[in-house]
């Protein structure tokens, strides 16, 4: 497509042309109407004048006969102006008047008739006029009328004005349209160039925002926000694949080594069995890591809304605490639970449960220290949010590590020796994000406090209480 063709095809140009046509029709209609109205008014005026003249002259005739009438007409003929008079006798001879006998003579009606006339002494030069014939007793005919050359001049002026204005309208409209189309096209071209570069793989490119705050800017801003989100998701994906490369190959290697050792090594049956059991155990833990990674990815990509339901967060908290109480007891620790009731949340009860399991599990793994170790689990309303917190009295996490520890596969130095995948906190954080909430890691002075802050749903008694029963 040529550059000009592209310009003509723009929406802005097409719109300009459409408006131009509409405006032209509108202007034409207005001017035509004005012209018609002006003519009407002028014609009316002439009619009134002619009527008045006829009344006056026929009075003169009634008072003083032909003589007085002829005098009166004579006086009027001499006066300047566009009035026309012609008094003839029954034979058609002119008695007095300022026009020649017109070729077309209005018949004896009381209507004004539009016709042409010649001035006396200027034969061959016709002028337009409105004339009316008045028959007097005695066979005299009186033609009275008015020159309407002025009307035609006025009509011509209006017509010319219409033509000129339409011409300028078209000119300005076409150029304005082209100018606007060009400006639009320029910005859209810049945008599509950016989009092409982004498609080609440059994810850092963004659409230009002019700062005018118009609809194109809004569009560009939204596209940029969308690109930002896509970048985030892609970064997440890349992180996952990197993690898979780094952290899944290690256990896979271990798995392979074990199988190989069993194949080539000692050959007693019980040793083989033992090796196979170890292989199964290793693959099971790999599957768990896979599941966790998939779940995090799914939660971060967003969850289909038909699987989200309203449930009581406090019921989930109590469930999990009840589930872990004997485990804690076995480790010589205590789980304290404190929940407000009816803390309705919209989301996935299962995922929240899993996130909480991860937090409690972490606390039991790393936060049990000193005499009488206690882990406090709480759920409460905090403004518009519901805060679910697991707080321990263990060694805690130093401030500089707190952000890092949420990342996938991140395991702090002192925890590396213990079993775990390093996915627990990142999964909890993903679950929080899925619920449009956040995960905070805080100092419990001493110890660690991990809080899930989720937006509260206004409680409706039905589904929430059902969720509690289910639990």
């Amino acid at each position, binding site marked *: 497509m040529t550059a000009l063709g592209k310009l003509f095809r723009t929406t802005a140009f097409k719109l300009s042309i459409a408006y131009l046509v509409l405006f032209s029709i509108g202007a034409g209609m207005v001017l035509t109407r004005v012209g018609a109205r002006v003519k009407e008014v002028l014609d009316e005026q002439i009619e009134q004048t002619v009527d008045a003249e006829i009344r006056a002259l026929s009075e003169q005739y009634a008072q003083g006969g032909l003589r007085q009438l002829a005098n009166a007409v004579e006086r009027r003929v001499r006066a300047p102006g566009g009035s026309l008079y012609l008094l003839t006798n029954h034979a058609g001879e002119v008695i007095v008047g300022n026009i020649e006998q017109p070729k077309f003579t209005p018949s004896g009606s009381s209507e004004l008739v539009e016709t042409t006339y010649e001035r006396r002494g200027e034969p061959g030069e016709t002028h337009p006029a409105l004339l009316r014939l008045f028959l007097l007793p005695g066979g005299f005919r009186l033609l009275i009328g008015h020159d309407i050359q002025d009307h035609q001049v006025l009509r011509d002026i209006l017509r010319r004005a219409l033509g000129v204005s339409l011409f300028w309208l078209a000119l300005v409209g076409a150029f304005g349209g082209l100018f606007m189309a060009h400006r639009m096209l320029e910005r859209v071209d810049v945008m599509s160039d950016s989009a092409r570069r982004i498609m080609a793989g440059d994810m850092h490119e963004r659409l230009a925002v002019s700062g005018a705050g118009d609809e194109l800017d809004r569009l560009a801003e939204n596209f940029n926000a969308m690109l930002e989100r896509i970048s985030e998701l892609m970064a997440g994906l890349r992180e996952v694949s990197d993690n898979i490369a780094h952290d899944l190959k290690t256990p896979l290697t271990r798995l392979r080594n074990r199988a190989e050792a069993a194949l080539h090594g000692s050959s007693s049956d019980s040793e083989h069995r033992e090796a196979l059991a170890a292989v*199964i155990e290793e*693959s*099971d833990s790999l*599957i*768990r890591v896979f*599941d966790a990674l*998939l*779940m995090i990815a*799914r939660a971060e990509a967003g*969850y*289909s809304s038909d*699987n989200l339901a309203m449930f009581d967060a406090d019921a989930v908290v109590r*469930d999990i605490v*009840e*589930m*872990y109480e*004997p*485990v804690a007891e*076995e480790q010589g620790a205590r789980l304290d639970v404190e929940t407000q009731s009816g803390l309705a949340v919209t989301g*996935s009860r*299962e*995922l929240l*449960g*899993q996130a909480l*399991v991860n937090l409690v*599990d972490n606390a039991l793994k790393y936060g049990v220290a000193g005499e009488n170790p206690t882990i406090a689990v709480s759920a409460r309303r905090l403004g518009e949010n519901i805060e679910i917190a697991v707080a321990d009295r263990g060694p805690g996490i130093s401030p500089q590590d707190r952000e890092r520890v949420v990342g996938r596969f991140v395991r702090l130095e002192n925890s590396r020796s213990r079993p775990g995948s390093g996915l627990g906190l990142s999964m909890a954080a993903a679950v929080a994000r899925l619920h449009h909430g956040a995960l905070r890691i805080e100092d419990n002075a001493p110890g660690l406090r991990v809080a899930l802050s989720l937006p509260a749903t206004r409680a409706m008694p039905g589904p929430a209480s059902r969720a509690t029963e*289910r*639990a």
Partner: protein
Amino acid sequence: MRILIIEDDREASDYLVKAFRQQGHVAEHEHDGLAGYARAAEGEYDVLLVDRMLPKMDGLSLISSLREQGVETPALILSALGQVDDRVKGLRAGGDDYLPKPYAFSELLARVEALARRRVGAKGEETHYRVGDLELDRLSHKVTVGGQEVVLQPREFRLLEYLMKHAGQVVTRTMLLENVWDYHFDPQTNVIDVHISRLRSKIDKGRENQLLHTVRGAGYMIRDSAR
């Protein structure tokens, strides 16, 4: 027990057929959705094992078509899609249980047996269970051992109730988590074991013939071993 396995991976289905036959069950298989549907609709099976992604007709449509035809054979869905929402979709389509791949055969076996049993016992839920001298009354929520009442926490009661409902069958840890706690994630630590050992201390204390058995590599079973 007659089991129909509808699974397009031949190696997996051959393995399952062999493993179920070793357990004394009759196992047959089909490799695509349409053939599986035809066979499931006409044959008399106790349990269907349906892979979710099948050629010609996917597992979920297969099950929902069967249900529309009035075939109520219990169906267990096997799927690589193991997230919570996948599971919900599977059960909504008419599946009776859902097991994500990869799975342990012991887990699958326990679930298949529970499904088949559920069908037999569908005549009406019993209100009173008895295993040896252990009795549980579901109406009065009372548990007695040798006539002596044992006080159980609500969760312990439900745990025992589920075990006794499936007396003589292996019940896996995930089955317990699903049916007693109503959560479907993987119990990573020994949570269930600790609950079981608490329950055991209440009903099997100082007894020679234990009722609550640990089945190595699979789960638990309640059974009167004295008989």
